[in-house]
């Protein structure tokens, strides 16, 4: 991060520094530090309640940090002379008065900045709401509401886009459309920061990943590195001597989980090493295989300890 070290801010850079947000006793975001760069789509990943929405609200100044900073281009959001052209935000849930039409909602926002009606029509066409623009938003489906939210975010043709679960409620066509849209926007040199709790979703859109759990940073990496780093080489061992084998395998950088009796999931090493260790100690193996693991597994592995709300029937751990 040469530019940050030099104290300069890159255009469109989102910088989160030691951001902490508490709601009463509940710590939603806990000393979070990361930066989002222009020119690529950055995914913001975390399980439910991880603090994604809270972080995004802090960036657009809706929630004040308990401590730390959330800045864009080195400025606090409220310092911008034309916030809508600097940052476009889609925040979770409908942020529209149900009794107002989509057109009037956009028009009212446009007027604050002197953005012409022509641009309002443009974004309405862009998100495909032309037919229903004059209808009250209260009757919109989830997907239509989401499209309106995207139209709002694009209204000022901003340098930075912050989108909280934009794919939520969109049909497959819509999902494909937004993927292309976001990639296109990033390729124009804009900063695109979008949250999701679905790894598979982000993997197809994002190049870079910020992963958080319980308000803490878990990973700040490229999608490729994330996949090869976390999704790699989990060795599944089935052995009647699982407990003893685990003792022999234990070592720095090696994590061992036992999803069920007699079964070990070993990561941080290779099948060959596990086999040799077993042989060296005369332990019987019934099965030895390498699981590549899906992206979703990688994500779940990473956030396993940080999941806020989990089902009572727990899966493998």
């Amino acid at each position, binding site marked *: 991060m*040469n530019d940050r070290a030099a104290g300069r801010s890159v255009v469109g850079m989102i910088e989160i520094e030691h951001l902490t947000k508490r709601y009463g006793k509940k710590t939603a975001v806990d000393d979070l530090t990361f930066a989002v760069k*222009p020119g690529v789509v950055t995914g913001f990943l975390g399980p439910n309640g991880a603090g994604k929405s809270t972080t995004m609200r802090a960036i657009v100044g809706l929630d004040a940090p308990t401590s730390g900073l959330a800045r864009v281009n080195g400025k606090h959001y409220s310092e911008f002379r034309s*916030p809508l052209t600097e940052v476009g935000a889609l925040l979770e*849930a409908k942020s529209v008065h149900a009794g107002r039409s989509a057109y*009037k909602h956009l028009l009212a*926002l446009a007027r604050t900045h002197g953005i012409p009606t022509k641009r309002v029509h443009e974004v309405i066409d862009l998100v495909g709401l032309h037919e229903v623009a004059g209808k009250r938003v209260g009757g919109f489906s989830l997907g239509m509401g989401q499209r309106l939210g995207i139209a709002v975010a694009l209204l000022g*043709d901003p340098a930075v886009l912050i989108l909280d679960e934009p794919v939520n409620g969109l049909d497959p066509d819509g999902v494909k459309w937004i993927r292309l849209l976001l990639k296109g926007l990033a390729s124009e040199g804009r900063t695109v920061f979008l949250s999701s709790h679905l790894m598979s979703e982000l993997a197809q859109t994002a190049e870079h990943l910020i992963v958080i759990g319980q308000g803490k940073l878990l990973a700040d990496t490229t999608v490729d590195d994330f996949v090869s780093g976390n999704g790699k080489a989990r060795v599944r061992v089935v052995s009647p001597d699982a407990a003893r084998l685990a003792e022999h395998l234990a070592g720095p950088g090696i994590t061992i989980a036992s999803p069920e009796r007699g079964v070990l999931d070993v990561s941080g090493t290779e099948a060959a090493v596990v086999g040799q260790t077993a042989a060296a100690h005369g332990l019987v193996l019934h099965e030895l295989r390498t699981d590549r693991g899906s992206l979703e597994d990688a994500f779940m592995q990473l956030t396993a300890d940080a999941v806020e709300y989990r089902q009572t029937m727990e899966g493998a751990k």
Partner: protein
Amino acid sequence: MTAAAMTERPAYAPPQQYRLTFVGELRSEWTKLWSLRSTWIVLLCAVVFSGGLGALISASVPDEAAVGGADAALSFAMAGVSLSSVFVAVLGILTITGEYTTGSIRSTLSAAPKRLGMLFSKALVFGAVVAVLFTAMVFATFFMSQALLSGTEIGGVSLGDEGVLRALFGYVGMIVYLALLAIAIGAILRNSAGSIGFYVGVIMILPQLATLLPWEWVSDVVPYAPGNVPNTIAVVDTSMGTLGLGESWLWMGIWLVVAYGLAGVLLKRRDV
């Protein structure tokens, strides 16, 4: 990330010609106000109520009751105007609490993150709309009422009579004041039912109920209650009130400063 990789793609320059301005915020609030059906409905109710009730009462006053001078004439004519301040106050409250209950406040304050501009532009736009509408209503109702009262002892009140014009504008001032107060209450409480309840209970009813209490200090204080201070400005003969004309305006100003001061501080400090 190296500097080279950083400049791999050209930097995007957002449009430069747009600015967030207070005039822009005023226009935005104007658009928002008139794009809700509830605005039209509630204002129509206020108009029908103030004109209709004024006419109804003026038409049905028996000759022997139509005595007492200009103030009596105005109290008959303006009965509906005074009551329709409730409609106006409720609408004022909804212009702001409606944003919180629907979540549109997030959009509004993302576009105007300094926040205070939102509150003041809302107040200014709504206050101006109410001022224009009720100036028309007050005068229309006055002339209509005078026509209906003609032939009675209080039928000959003219705009030129001392204090009449001032009192009529006083009614407008009172309604605008209550509308502005309502917006501030909505901004403070952020909840429709709570704000309307507070307005009706504390601003409208409590001062009336309080006069029933046996303690003397209560009746000393009651004229200074936020809902009572504008009373003097809407009467022709101001010598009867506890507050003088100037004091009445002063106290309206004081209450608005208190209400907007609190609303502004809370708006700045609270999360949206």
